[in-house]
């Protein structure tokens, strides 16, 4: 009788996860027109230079979201998945280069000078994405954070990055230049599978499922905002590069935008570890 109940709950948890996976795949953050049009629009190295300048801060902060969440994880079981993913983020399966280092190699291939990676003005939606994820991982319940860095990232990134890679190929990037992106197609598929196993144990109650789903959707909402921000930048930056002397609609918007270097200096993170007892 007990095993039948456990089996039913597990089945129900898997149904929930399947349905969440489908919801994520259909989310406009994953299906943003900037990604979907990689197949049909012309894409150039300059476009990816702009994209990289905006995306790099997300890459460089992801590990910290995970580390903060790890601090708040209620049990060793909860820590295990986060720790496994973190080991990859630190460079376990990328020849010792952490993910930010791999990304910098891509940035250099896209035309960003070494050492200047953090010096580009950031669209407000880039800053918004980072702040939102720190908020989720430090102030929301643990399972909301897990939903954001778990399904919200691991189940969306392979699909989004496939589109990006279509554009990279169109823009003439060599396979070596695309290592960061290709690596995520494999690693995130693994992370996603590990995650599913980990999540089964956490989504036994409707409340827990709702928290995981809410975290995923909060992350994807920030992701959709992020892509709009990147599109905004790409549209105007490319115009400036191709038609010098013609003022874009966004002229002057960059004057007040912080660089990633500015953002890092001004970022304060507070973690309330007392919240752990609330989760237990």
């Amino acid at each position, binding site marked *: 009788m007990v095993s039948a109940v456990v089996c039913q709950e597990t089945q129900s948890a898997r149904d929930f996860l399947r349905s969440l996976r489908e919801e994520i*795949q*259909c*989310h*406009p*953050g*994953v*299906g*943003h*027109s*900037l*990604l*979907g*049009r*990689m*197949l*049909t629009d*012309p894409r150039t190295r300059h476009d990816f230079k702009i994209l990289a300048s905006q995306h790099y801060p997300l890459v460089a902060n992801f590990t910290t979201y995970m580390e903060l969440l790890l601090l708040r994880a209620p049990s060793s079981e909860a820590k295990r998945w986060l720790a496994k993913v973190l080991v990859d983020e630190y460079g376990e399966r990328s020849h010792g280069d952490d993910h930010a280092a791999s990304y910098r190699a891509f940035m250099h291939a896209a035309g960003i000078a070494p050492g200047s990676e953090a010096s580009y003005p950031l*669209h*407000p*939606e880039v800053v*918004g994405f980072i702040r939102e994820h720190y908020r989720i991982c430090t102030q929301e319940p643990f399972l909301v954070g897990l939903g954001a860095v778990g399904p919200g990232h691991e189940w969306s990134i392979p*699909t989004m990055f496939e*589109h990006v890679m279509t554009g990279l190929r169109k823009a003439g990037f060599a396979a070596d230049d695309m290592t960061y992106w290709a690596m995520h197609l494999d690693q995130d598929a693994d992370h996603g599978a590990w995650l599913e196993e980990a999540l089964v144990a956490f989504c036994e109650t409707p409340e827990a499922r709702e928290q995981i789903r809410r975290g995923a*959707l909060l992350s*994807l*909402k920030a992701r*959709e*905002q992020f892509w*709009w*921000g990147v*599109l*905004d930048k790409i*549209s*105007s930056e*490319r*115009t400036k*590069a*191709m*038609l010098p002397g*013609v003022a*874009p*609609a*966004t002229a002057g*918007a960059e004057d007040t935008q912080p660089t990633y270097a500015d953002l890092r200096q001004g970022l304060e993170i507070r973690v309330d570890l007392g919240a752990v007892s609330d989760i237990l």
Partner: protein
Amino acid sequence: MSCPTPALLMVAFGGPTPGCCERFTPCPGEAHCFVSGILGHNPARRQRIAEVAAHYQEFGGYSEFNAYTRKQAEALAAELGSRGLDVPVWCGYHHWRPYVREVVADMKAAGVREMLVLIMAPHQSSVSWDLYLRIVGEGIEQAGAGAPRVIGVVEPWWNEAGFTGAIADRITEASCREGIDLCAPDTALLLTAHAVPESLSRTAPYCKQIEETAALVATQLGGPDYRVAYQSQSGDSAVPWTQPMVEDVIAAYADAGKSTIVGNAIGFLCDNIEVLYDLGVEGRRCAAEHGVRFVRAESVHSHPAFIRMLADRVAAKLAR
């Protein structure tokens, strides 16, 4: 062969016309192809693409957008000709044939060496103004050596009397036709533009320019009760878009006791499907649900004042 005088390239959004665009195999139909070209060829947007493509089916599956734009181009060329300016006017579109890159290649083949660019969007955002400029630049790059050089971009005209006066005229025409007194206490004016994600509205003057256009139109109409609303928001988006939406303003007007609303899409230059369906069909339906009469005034199209204003700006740019 070389063309001694500069040409004018009008850049507009475009709309589907009969004839496969040959981008996708098998062809899913022109309207479907057009919408998926905008939203992206992406399974995640399949439902939204089908939803929007269905709006086109209600009007026969195609759009008159390109035909309207061609008429505007012909009227502008004629107006410039009447001023002794023999300026060939070319039309290129972002989302349908002839694409801007194709037109730039044709211009090169025709010997055009210099061109002025006219962006057919009255209000500036990165996804209209900047994107249109971008595709001109891409067209030039793709055409390679000998492609026409951009000698200038016609300045935006959101607050020009020729534009706001043309809108006011269209609204007056519709009101007179329907026997409506725009300044009557139970009547209101709804002026709409395409919604954009709020994040884009913060980096460009888009909303400010729309508000300014609306205020100038209202002044020319004698000061009716008017509000700006945003239409055609992507229904599956999770992020905030510019507000208020058309439906919210109609509901607010109904609550305020208005019995008649006259609507005009001031952010659009012709009656494309978004104007016809989102404002004309859904706006009217929403008003009817609130017991309010709704009359849509047509877009500026080739209104003589609008065309004269464009000609003034083209001529001024050529004179520099």
